[in-house]
């Protein structure tokens, strides 16, 4: 009874070994094949008898053979197994069959190899799938590369354009300034003023474009911090704006009891942007509030205007370049002012934030110390 059972089991095992859909190979401790199943032999276009006695690496293509001897054999000896390794069987005239191979080394009590077992799975479909994946990856990498190169060229173009536009404009501006000193008819003087103010606006726009290019290309706007009387700086900027917008009121609320470290040119630019924004977007008959506070822990500048709430979806993109709010007829810039202000705040290790409700909108530039 026991005997018959074990006979049956042994028959079952033989059948399992031979008619399996994967290849089984058994080799002695030195790597010489002692048994190989029909499936593996069929893949190699021969019968098991012809393969017994050969070295296991003889089953593989040249690449696989070298790979086996230099990588897989050492692994068997070092860690006793390897798994999911892709190799190709030797070409028998019908092309090289890709397989996945797992290997295992059985050792005796002295850590000496007794025999080796290998399992081989045909991997043609999976190979095709992997090749497709690799092709897609390569294609995506190429496209990304092209995009990145184009982006760099675009931004370099902006930088060069800005720089080159400034020179002829400088000529126009100095000529205008000289002309205004001459005797002019009222009509000509008016026309001169238009040329002058338009040139100035254009000059600012070009500066903004160059700041954008600098911010995008050169890792942000750089600053040169010096010790500054913030109150004096803010008063100067506010007065300049009042000249440009004689009809508007700018109220100042300062609580500054010390000098601060900042780049005065850049901070003036930031405040000027915020004030011009507030004047453009605030209700015409209301005043703008320019606030500032400096303590031992922080210093901050805020600009508040009355007016409608900025819509939520606009807030998200407010500090992005070329952002323009709606189709407001007051718009005449490039939509770079807030982006550049934000970059200036960042360069000071500070933050520019906005708070907007139904009645008023407040921009705050805050630097924590």
């Amino acid at each position, binding site marked *: 009874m026991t005997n018959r059972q074990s006979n049956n089991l042994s028959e079952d095992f033989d059948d399992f070994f031979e008619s399996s859909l994967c290849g089984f190979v058994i080799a002695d401790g030195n790597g010489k094949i002692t048994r190989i199943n029909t499936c593996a032999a069929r893949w190699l276009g021969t019968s098991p008898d012809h393969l017994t006695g050969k070295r296991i690496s003889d089953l593989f293509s040249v690449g696989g053979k070298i790979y086996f001897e230099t990588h897989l054999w050492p692994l068997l000896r070092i860690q006793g197994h390897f798994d999911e*390794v892709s190799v190709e069987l030797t070409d028998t005239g019908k092309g090289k069959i890709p397989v996945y191979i797992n290997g295992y080394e059985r050792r005796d009590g002295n850590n000496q190899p007794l025999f080796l077992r290998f399992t081989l799975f045909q991997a043609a479909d999976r190979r095709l799938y992997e090749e497709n994946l690799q092709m897609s990856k390569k294609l995506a990498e190429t496209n990304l590369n092209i995009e990145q190169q184009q982006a760099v060229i675009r931004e370099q173009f902006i930088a060069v354009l800005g720089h080159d536009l400034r020179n002829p404009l400088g000529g126009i501006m100095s000529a205008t300034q000289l002309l205004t000193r001459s005797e002019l008819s009222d009509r000509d003087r008016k026309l001169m003023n238009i040329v002058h103010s338009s040139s100035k606006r254009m000059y600012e726009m070009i500066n903004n474009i160059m700041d954008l290019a600098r911010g995008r290309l050169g890792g942000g706007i750089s600053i040169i911090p010096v010790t500054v009387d913030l109150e004096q700086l803010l008063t100067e900027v506010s007065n300049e704006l009042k000249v440009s917008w004689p009809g508007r009121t700018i109220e100042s609320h300062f609580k500054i009891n010390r000098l601060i470290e900042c780049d005065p040119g850049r901070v003036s630019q930031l405040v000027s942007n915020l004030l011009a924004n507030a004047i453009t977007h605030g209700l015409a008959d209301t005043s703008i509030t320019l606030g500032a506070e400096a303590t031992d822990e922080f210093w901050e500048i805020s600009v508040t205007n009355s007016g409608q709430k900025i819509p939520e979806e606009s807030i998200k993109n407010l500090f992005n370049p070329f952002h323009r709010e709606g189709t407001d007829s007051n718009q005449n810039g490039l939509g770079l002012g807030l982006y550049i202000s934000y970059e200036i705040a960042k360069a000071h290790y500070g933050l520019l934030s906005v708070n907007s409700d139904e009645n008023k909108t407040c921009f705050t530039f805050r630097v924590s110390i």
Partner: protein
Amino acid sequence: MDILKRNNVTINGEGENVIFFAHGFGCDQNMWRYVSPVFEDSHTTVLFDHVGSGNSDLSSYSFEKYSQLEGYAEDIVEIAKELKISNAVFVGHSVSSIMGIIAAKMAPGLFKKLVLVSPSPSYINEDDYVGGFSRSEINELLDSLNDNHLGWSATMAPVIMGNPDRPELGKELTNSFCKTDPEIAKHFARTTFLTDKRDILGDLKVPVLILQCSNDVIAPVEVGHYMHRQMEGSQLVIMNATGHCPNLSAPHETIEAIRVFLND
């Protein structure tokens, strides 16, 4: 750059007598795990991983420097200088044997004896020279590596490559002993299998032992005989061990052969 970290140098044993163990194309210093400990009683052993292999600093890998065996040989000389070692024994496996010869010529006095395990100066048959492979067979190997048709999935590589400062991440992977970044493996294979260094074998002033396995598909017996002929005064031992890695498959035979040579 910390040279010892770059090459993941491991020092064991003690004493004035120093033995270098250099691994070949494929795995890392673990290749010597059954051989080098035996020498620790009487020697200081120096093991290392070539840059690009094992737990070396992958960020130090240079495709230009390591396109020639001289690049690897320079590293060996640098390690020895860093450790203030001279008059040492060099044991190199496979392609490292040739690196050892180059290093010995670069820095005379650095090595007093060379043990070359399964060496080959050139793997490609040419005229009367039997290297073991035809040129087209070697090209087939390089193509297979190029197309990622050999080895492990390429997606595993970034895990190791992206964390050169955390080599332990690489260690956790199975098969990690022989797992290299596919780009580096391809390049190392190219440097190894396309190199022809037959012209440097002569004129070496130090004693040489060549350990040649029987039935090695990578470096056939003819190669061992060729090296023996070219290297005047060298000793050739044809081992019973089969395959390409007697340091793993027949450590006792390897140890004995080295011992006899060292006591000469």
